[in-house]
């Protein structure tokens, strides 16, 4: 990073305060936030959900919703105060021009009925007053190239649905560049993308910062992205700045305890498998954790195939082969981690192993008995022994039931115990996941994401199953909550002797909990080995790419002390 004098200030935010009016309440979202962005600087605003990150971005873009009130603050951009702008017309000159915005979800940010090229032309027309069609095309294609898209000509003529998520996000970058911005505000620009694609998009953004001297305000919850891709960082918690400074310094020696907890919670490349918390009063037999060679295979999956058929209006019948020839085995009492990117078929495998879906062909032997083609009674028995934890705890709990009813549902479904006994067992399961019995009468809306996922786990263990299929159980949670839930899972495994099939897109998370890892790519299992072997000697290029995508422990990165 080139050192800049204080004259190179692009954005200077001072004492920003925003609150939302809801019903009769004033909800403070952001309070007393100050920061500066210099020319060529990449500033990360990090924090967990609800910390006020997006509120800051929206305030700086004049995009706050109607019930938001700016209480205080000045945001100097050039010679004007952004927070004082009242007319939409003036905003329209700035937004997309000197300040560009890259939104979070590339799948909804592009107009689906317009070709990509037209959408870039629009910016050039509005902010650069270009009219000539051929000139517009030339400039737009150039922008697409600068945004890191190969085959820019083809992309120019494509509709958004013909592009992948990563390509769309780079189209949005191209649109942002169209107005020749001085500052780009990017709100979680890569959170919907797979790690390998995320790398491409961020590389493109970095190149632009370097070649054009742009400044970037990066809003993210992803500490790894913040640590590797930015020069300085502001840590938000409950709308206030708790830590700030040079990224390298903050990451290496966080001053505030919250920042330290945040970074410790994030899985990194140097992490090791979690072991159960030692509990002195545990009356359970000690189990030696690393697989015993004589331990039996609980589940053996052989030659799994699954295709989905969709009938389109114009395209006719299309067959998508979700899973091809997948075979693996899970040893009793261990965790099998299945890693892959979106569309790799990992959820399909999870649902088949759990017995929710049936495979087209292949067998799933549970304790040696094939259950894939079993009858109703047999499958019902399987469901008792195999439980499933969904990715999204906001949709997997019926909002109308209370926690007691939710946790007791499998007991109810399998007609286990009398009414009072079910309640006792539900309470027991709730205590096992670290929630006290006062939660029994609460409804899901009253719970946080982490508490909801604990309730979902309690529901899964209420039946005392042997295998629990965990489908991305922490990807909807904040990092600190994720760390707690992962620890809980490891403790429960130890306590009840559970076997896990753990699905994740994040190899870093997989490493924390798994004994053996399978890597899925385009529906096929490309590599399969004990967890340490995957990390020390990956045989496939694809596996190596996934490993590279995990954030390295930041302090090991070669980094000269900042020029400032």
């Amino acid at each position, binding site marked *: 990073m080139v050192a800049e004098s204080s004259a190179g200030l692009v954005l200077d935010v001072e004492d920003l305060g925003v609150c939302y009016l809801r019903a009769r309440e004033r909800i403070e979202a952001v309070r007393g936030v100050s920061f500066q962005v210099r020319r060529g600087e990449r500033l990360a605003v990090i924090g967990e959900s609800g910390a006020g990150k997006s509120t800051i971005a929206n305030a700086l873009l004049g995009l706050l919703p109607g019930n938001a009130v700016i209480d205080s603050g000045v945001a100097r951009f050039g010679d004007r105060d952004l927070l004082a702008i009242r007319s939409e017309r003036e905003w329209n000159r700035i937004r997309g021009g000197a300040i560009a915005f890259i939104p979070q979800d590339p799948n909804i940010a592009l107009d689906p009925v317009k070709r990509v090229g037209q959408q870039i032309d629009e910016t050039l027309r509005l902010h650069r007053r270009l009219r000539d069609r051929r000139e517009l095309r030339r400039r737009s294609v150039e922008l697409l190239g600068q945004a890191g898209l190969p085959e820019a000509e083809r992309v120019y003529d494509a509709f958004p649905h013909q592009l992948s998520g990563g390509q769309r996000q780079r189209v949005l970058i191209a649109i942002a560049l169209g107005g020749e911005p001085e500052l780009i505000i990017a709100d979680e620009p890569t959170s919907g993308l797979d790690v390998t694609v995320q790398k491409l998009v961020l590389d493109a953004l970095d190149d632009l910062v370097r070649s054009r001297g742009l400044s970037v305000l990066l809003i993210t919850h992803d500490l790894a992205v913040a640590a590797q891709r930015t020069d300085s960082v502001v840590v938000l918690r409950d709308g206030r700045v708790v830590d700030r400074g040079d990224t390298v310094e903050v990451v290496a020696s966080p001053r505030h305890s919250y920042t330290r907890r945040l970074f410790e919670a994030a899985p990194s490349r140097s992490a090791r498998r979690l072991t159960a918390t030692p509990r002195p009063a545990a009356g359970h037999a000690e189990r030696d954790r690393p697989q015993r060679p004589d331990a039996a295979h609980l589940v053996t999956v052989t030659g799994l195939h699954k295709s989905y058929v969709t009938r389109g209006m114009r395209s006719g019948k299309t067959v998508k082969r979700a899973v091809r020839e997948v075979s693996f085995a899970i040893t009793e009492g261990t965790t099998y981690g299945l890693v892959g990117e979106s569309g790799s078929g990992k959820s399909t495998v999870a649902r088949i192993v759990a017995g929710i879906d049936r495979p087209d062909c292949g067998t799933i032997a549970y304790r040696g008995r094939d259950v894939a083609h079993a009858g109703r009674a047999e499958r019902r028995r399987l469901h008792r022994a195999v439980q499933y934890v969904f990715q999204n705890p906001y949709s997997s709990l019926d909002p109308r039931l209370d926690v007691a009813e939710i946790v007791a549902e499998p007991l109810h*479904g399998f007609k286990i115990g009398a009414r009072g006994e079910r309640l006792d067992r539900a309470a027991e399961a709730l205590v096992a996941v670290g929630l006290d019995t006062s939660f029994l009468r609460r409804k899901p809306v009253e719970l946080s994401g982490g508490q909801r996922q604990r309730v979902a786990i309690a529901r899964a263990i209420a039946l005392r199953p042997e295998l629990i299929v965990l489908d991305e159980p922490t990807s909807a949670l904040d990092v600190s909550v994720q760390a707690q839930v992962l620890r809980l899972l490891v403790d429960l495994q130890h306590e009840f002797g559970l076997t896990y099939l753990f699905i994740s897109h994040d190899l870093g998370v997989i490493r924390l909990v798994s004994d053996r890892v399978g890597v899925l790519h385009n529906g096929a299992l490309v590599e399969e080995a004990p967890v340490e072997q995957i990390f020390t000697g990956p045989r496939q290029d694809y596996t190596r790419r996934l490993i590279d995508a995990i954030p390295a422990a930041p302090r090991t990165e070669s980094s000269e002390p900042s020029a400032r």
Partner: protein
Amino acid sequence: MSEETIVDEAPSAYPTPDVKPDRTGARAGTTSWLRRARARGVPAQLLQPSLVLAVLVLVVVVLWALFPGTFAPHDPYARELTDKLAAPSPDHPFGTDNLGRDYLSRFIYGSRTTLVAALLALAIGFTVSVLIGLPAGYLGGVIDEIVGRLIDIFLAVPGLLISLMLVTSIGFGTVNIAVAVGAGSIATFTRVLRAEVLRVRRSDFVTSAVHCGVRWPTVLRRHILPHAIGPMIALAALEFGTALLSISALSFLGFGAPPPTPEWGSLVSDGRAYLAYAWWLTTLPGLAIVLVVVSANRVGTFVERIR
């Protein structure tokens, strides 16, 4: 002394700190009772004048239906031959018919039969569609195909026509037109419910319940119906006005209760013969029906919006 205490207590009677006196004063256009209600903390969306008016109309009509004797100024069957075909007057606000019966009293007594018939029609449409749409949407397959096509066929024909065909085959009478109108609305209800069930069925919590061994009738009752019922209730509120109108129409056509029992539709119909020199016999009941139906729709759209 006592005056002073009242003045002192006045602010505490409206314990809403954020409604400041100057802001209330700014809403100069609103009447004082609306302002008072607002100050008491009644949600603003409940206080739209048109909605308040609509609710008022419905409350009056329901009271008429419940206690017609209390509200009717005259006996609806008493003939006053000296006073036949009298124009509206303070004594006979809707005038009198060719037999000298007070038309307002007949309208008030008629509200009972008409409202009961409309509610019965709604109950039939609602219940049958739950019995059909819920399993069809959930189980899918052939059952759903059949139900879906049947809905399409019934929706292609106007509901009133279906009711008309039914009532001519099952016979006349208030209950019969209620059944016919109810049957005519089944398709509308089922279509909405089925769509809702298809949406809820895909939820993770439903998959989870099935995986937890819960049998499908329980899944329907416990997880799907409570989440799918909301739009149904909003639709029922809207359909109430339509049902009133259909029942009045069938009764106007003479399929309802035999004379002298008053029904809204037959009242309009009875006055038709005297349209040339006693306009009030058709116009006033007709306008009253329109007012009630519009009020029911107003409340219905409100229910749909707040859902």
